[in-house]
């Protein structure tokens, strides 16, 4: 069984967002980039577990980005993965990104596509579903466990107000979240091996984006915390009622 894991690179969680060019762009100078945590901790690690248990034979990683994201892909390869594919384009339109990946994936014969439930930069959570639609595959989002039995994926997923267990024939796209696997750190052997694993670069297909970001805004600064004495909870409740109007 061949697994494809979709990897996105994102600014590290602790990055302070600074705007530039009249608020039309994010200043990326000095930003540390990481593998999107949902892609890494859950999707990629689960793929590695499936290979370790003999269910998967091969793991490929795919990403959309320019050459400067290669260190992040090498890090993903150091965790596990036999080969990486970088689609040489920059895109923040989910449809465009999904078409790039779908056009590569169509003829590549993957049985399972894993991705994170969303990326922590643009927080869309749309690429995986779009990919499934473009590939005419089923999609299971918000997965909390992923098992493979023969040609069938058995998946627990979060639903509105609870959880359900689904079964679905392969191939399928599954978007992973907490529960699917436990985070790992790459070991020295993996880091050394990653240097020699193939990282293919392919040209993007011609597709125009359907959305564009016009400008950014930073949230208004907090007015500052109003401290209430631990012995005066009546005052806190009154403030929540009259001032915050939340109860």
């Amino acid at each position: 069984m061949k697994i494809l894991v979709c990897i996105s690179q994102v600014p590290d969680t602790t990055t302070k967002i600074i705007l530039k060019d009249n608020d039309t762009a994010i200043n990326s100078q000095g930003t540390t980039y990481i593998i999107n945590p949902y892609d890494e901790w859950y999707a990629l690690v689960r793929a590695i577990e499936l290979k370790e248990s003999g269910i998967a034979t091969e793991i490929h990683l795919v990403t959309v980005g320019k050459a400067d994201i290669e260190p992040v892909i090498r890090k993903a390869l150091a965790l596990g993965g036999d080969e990486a594919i970088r689609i040489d384009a920059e895109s923040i339109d989910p449809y465009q990104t999904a078409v790039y990946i779908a056009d590569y994936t169509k003829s590549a014969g993957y049985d399972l596509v894993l991705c994170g439930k969303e990326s922590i930069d643009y927080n869309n959570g749309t690429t995986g579903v779009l990919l499934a639609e473009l590939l005419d595959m089923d999609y299971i989002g918000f997965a909390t466990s992923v098992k493979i039995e023969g040609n069938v994926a058995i998946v627990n997923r979060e639903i509105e107000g609870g959880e359900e267990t689904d079964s679905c024939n392969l191939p399928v796209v599954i978007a992973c979240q907490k529960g699917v696997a436990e985070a790992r750190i790459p070991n020295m052997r993996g880091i050394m091996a990653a240097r020699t694993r193939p990282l293919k670069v392919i040209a993007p297909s011609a597709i125009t984006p359907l959305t564009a970001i016009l400008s950014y805004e930073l949230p208004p600064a907090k007015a500052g915390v109003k401290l209430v004495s631990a012995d005066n909870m009546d005052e806190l409740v009154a403030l929540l009622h009259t001032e915050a109007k939340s109860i």
Partner: protein
Amino acid sequence: MSVIVLVEHTGGNIKKKSFEAVQYAAQIAQQTATTVTAVVLGSIADAEMEALGNYGASKVIHIADNRLDELHARAYTTALVNIARAEDSKIIITLYDINGRAVAPRVAAQLKAGIVAGALSYPNLEKGFAIKKSVFSGKAFAWVNVLSDVKVIMLMPNTFQLSKTDGKATIEKQDISFSEKDFGIKVTAVNKVTGEIALTDATLVVSGGRGMKGPENWGLIEDLAKELGAATACSRPVADTHWRPHHEHVGQTGGTIRPDLYIAVGISGAIQHLAGVNGSKTIVVINSDPEAPFFKAANYGVVGDAMAVLPKLTAAVKKFKEQHH
């Protein structure tokens, strides 16, 4: 040319956030000089659907097929795309929640529509079709301009206040022929959380962290939540040590919530935690450490030991409720 909006219901009861989506659609319909068609799928009574008129729907299309009582995203997509084509709709709206997120991108791909995931504003038509959304886990906002002729919007729940009108909607029954692949995913077991308020829908949330010391003290969180009618949540260490189930974990790697009120008890406020809750309208932090970073993100703070403060706060809420009834 109507604005199409997908309505969700639980066992035949329309969700509050879906009324919000209908009201949002009505506002956009007014901006673009058209009307709202609400789409309801699965088993539900007409009387319940009539209420959609009160929030601005002029027509309700009901597809009663009971297979749609469960989320079958491809079947939902088929229904929405069929209706959108029949009505020549240019704007399709769902919620930015588990159901909406499984359906809206598929609809968008079929209709070659740009998507706004997690809309926080009405479209600014002077700038094109620009909608505000949260990015970088709440650290910034982006104005996303939809360039395509057809637009798909997923509305962030709990963004707009509901206001009821005396509007009326007509209900139209439709049958749609689905294909086998619309039901490719078989649901083999369902475990609905009953008797508690779903965290993602809650307007009030009480959340506990390591400062709660151990699971034996969790009753204090539940007491306050019960008195307020709030849902309970927790920070990552609490979920990782299995004091509480994973679905209650909010933060960067857990769930994201945007309640009216978030009360954080014994949570230091790491940036990863804030990423899951910084959309909350009001934040109260209770922590024994006056230097806890969470106080910087809070509206109200109480410095004190959670075990001592919580019973007092619960009692104060109880007293308040008795006085206001």
